[in-house]
């Protein structure tokens, strides 16, 4: 009996150090929106006006994710991911703010790259709901 209690206590302690973030509907929704926006943007890379609108949306969503995860307990990992996404969107935004004409291929590859990161994140957040 003593052994069982000891094992239970050890498990509890180790469990505390491995506390994963809890599934959060809002978080999942924001990340899904980032994926949807980057997909739509990918299809309209030739239209600068639309691209700029999508970039504004991406900025809002990625910044929202960053602020949202920052204040949630056990969401440090997801906050780190949000920082990468914010950085990505900032790079994209900078390209279109310098009055240059970024290439069509750059736009397509950059949005693909964002989508890859976001989809991997969606899978993980989704798994937390199991």
């Amino acid at each position: 009996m003593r052994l069982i209690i000891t094992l239970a206590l050890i498990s509890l302690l180790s469990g505390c150090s491995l506390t994963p973030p809890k599934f959060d509907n809002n978080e999942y929704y924001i990340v899904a929106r980032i994926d949807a926006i980057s997909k739509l943007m990918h299809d309209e890379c030739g239209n600068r006006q639309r691209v700029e609108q999508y970039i504004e949306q991406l900025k809002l969503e990625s910044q929202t994710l960053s602020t949202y995860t920052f204040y949630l307990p056990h969401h440090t990992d997801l906050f780190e991911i949000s920082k990468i996404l914010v950085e990505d969107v900032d790079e994209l935004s900078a390209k279109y703010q310098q009055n240059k004409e970024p290439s069509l291929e750059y736009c397509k590859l950059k949005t693909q790259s964002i989508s890859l990161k976001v989809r991997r994140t969606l899978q993980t957040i989704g798994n937390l709901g199991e």
Partner: protein
Amino acid sequence: MSDQSFLPYTHDDDALIAQTARVLHDAEQAYNYGQITKEEFEELANDVIQTNLIDKITDSIDYKHRAHQVVQAFIQIVQLILAR
């Protein structure tokens, strides 16, 4: 990859690696054909590193989640034994 059988999750590291490699390959091709600038290519190449970083972070979350589930199951078993 090799952990795929251990984790009951719906993610495929091999697919992500393949897709990331494809983006890098396409970026290389675009740069070689002059479709993107050197600066754009470097940014896209750096994105590959960032994608790998995200993969590591998400793997860590997956493992924590899995370990937490195992611990929870174990605690339930112990509680059942103690309740008898």
